[in-house]
């Protein structure tokens, strides 16, 4: 049961962030940026298919990745709150990507070495992708932080919006502990120092300082989400909801 949830969390993170990024398609600040955001979104949707497919397989009730993606309600989604945050302006989108991709790199490095080969294989493939995402996001943090007064102010505001959701990435609970016992888990709390280092190094290069510490906003892993997720789902799940039983 808990390994199902564990795989589902990984799939939900990638799915929701991929969905968010795909909202940019056709509307980005430049064509090159449009293409790069679409690349990241495609990678994430691919990861979601793999992790949710695995979750369905472990669950063994005949639900596939699509059933999990398109026919669960908010309280059954287990993504972290960070990834469901609205795109905002480009700086806010980059702030979200920056914090998440660096976490994902560290996480997937460990997961790729897990005993459970099903998880390890997906992680190994995804790791190559997310290393690129982290570089892309970092480059933009530096460009925007070190660009104009306006871009700096927007980058600061974007980071400020997202910062309260960073702690959740590293929170360990029973599901994580059980996954470690089962040979598929990662000690997320232990990733924090490396993550801090990565984030601080990029911020320094960008001429930015780390946002002030604040009370963490938590709840995504147990289905307690922000108001934003329901709207995202109502859009994403529209066809499956309107035409139950149809295949596409």
């Amino acid at each position, binding site marked *: 049961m808990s390994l199902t949830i564990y795989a589902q969390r990984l799939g939900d993170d990638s*799915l929701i962030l991929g*969905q968010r990024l*795909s*909202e940019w*398609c*056709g*509307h*980005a*600040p*430049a*064509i*090159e*940026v*449009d*293409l790069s955001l*679409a*690349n990241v*979104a*495609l990678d994430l*949707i*691919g990861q*979601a*298919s793999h992790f*949710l497919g695995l979750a369905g397989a472990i669950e063994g009730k005949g639900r596939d*990745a*699509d059933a999990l*993606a*398109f026919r669960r309600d908010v309280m059954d989604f287990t993504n972290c709150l960070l990834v469901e945050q609205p795109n905002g*302006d*480009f700086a806010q989108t980059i702030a979200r990507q920056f914090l998440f991709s660096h976490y994902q790199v560290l996480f997937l490095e460990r997961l790729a070495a897990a005993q459970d080969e099903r998880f390890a294989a997906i992680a190994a493939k995804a790791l190559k992708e997310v290393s690129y995402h982290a570089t892309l996001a970092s480059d933009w943090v*530096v*460009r*925007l932080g*070190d*660009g*104009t007064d*306006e*871009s700096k102010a*927007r980058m600061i505001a974007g980071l400020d919006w997202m910062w309260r959701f960073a702690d959740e990435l590293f929170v360990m609970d029973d599901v994580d502990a059980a996954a470690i016992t089962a040979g598929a888990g990662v000690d997320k709390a232990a990733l924090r120092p490396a993550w801090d280092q990565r984030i601080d190094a990029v911020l320094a290069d960008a001429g930015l300082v780390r946002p002030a510490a604040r009370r963490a906003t938590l709840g995504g892993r147990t289905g307690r989400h922000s108001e934003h997720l329901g709207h995202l789902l109502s*859009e*994403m799940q*529209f*066809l*499956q909801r309107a*035409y139950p*039983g*149809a*295949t*596409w």
Partner: protein
Amino acid sequence: MYTTDLSGKNKAEAVSEDAAKVAAFEARVANDEFIEPKDWMPEAYRKTLIRQISQHAHSEIVGMLPEGNWITRAPNLRRKAILLAKVQDEGGHGLYLYAAAETLGVSRDEMTEALLSGKAKYSTIFNYPTLTWADIGAIGWLVDGAAIMNQVPLQRTSYGPYARAMVRICKEESFHQRQGYEIMMHLAQGTPEQKRMAQDAIDRWWWPSLMMFGPPDDKSPNTEQSMRWRIKRETNDELRQKFVDITVPQAHAIGLSVPDPALKWNEARGAHDFGEVDWEEFYAVVRGEGPVAKERMQARQKAWDDGAWVREAARVHAEKRASAKIAAE
């Protein structure tokens, strides 16, 4: 290529050019040689190409919007990924084409401004709304299908950078067409609601797709010149006929009807007879009076305006880093 521009200018402009140079140029073109950016070319050729290539580039970029409208609502993960990749390809096509046009001495910013001011055109087809998921199928099948028909001959167009861009683009377009037809096929075999969706989509997209080939030959003032310059290789009506002949059996094969009462196979011609396009509608859409023309331009304008600070930041940052590097050396 997306043929919407109707202006018959550019004939009178070649007056003062060296007759010997013009003759040598025309001979090279007639000989099917490629003209390269550094080669001498008549001013009218350059201008016509800039207009045609930039219009094509704009069509790729504006064309991202109607399909982009359904990425977040795609019905499953596979379809979502395919559609996202497809729309991303169109953005890439826009990039190749802008780059090809830039070799003729016009900047991407200038071209973008021409689009946003309404001075430059883009394909009429993208001024129609995508209302249901079946429209994504219809666009891939019909619109990309029509685009392929226009573009395949342009792989042999006389201007080298344009021809090479077309080669890259055509490789991807056939995947676009197939994924669209596959969506339609699936819907046509689906539930009654899905079938209805599919038929409604072809009913709405059929005629606008035929308009993509541009005005009838007798109302297409640039055709003769463009054919001679090898920047067009078949006439609008020839291409339109070809499209009808290929597409009608595809529709029937999946049980969809084509919304044209005049459509019938003509044994003697070995081709379909078909009804008259509503040219009044076509010209209105060219004038910018298409059903969602305002929405399309508003979206492009917004992306451009909202992105200005990002592009500016990237430029300023690159300058800072470049001068820091020089100072360090």
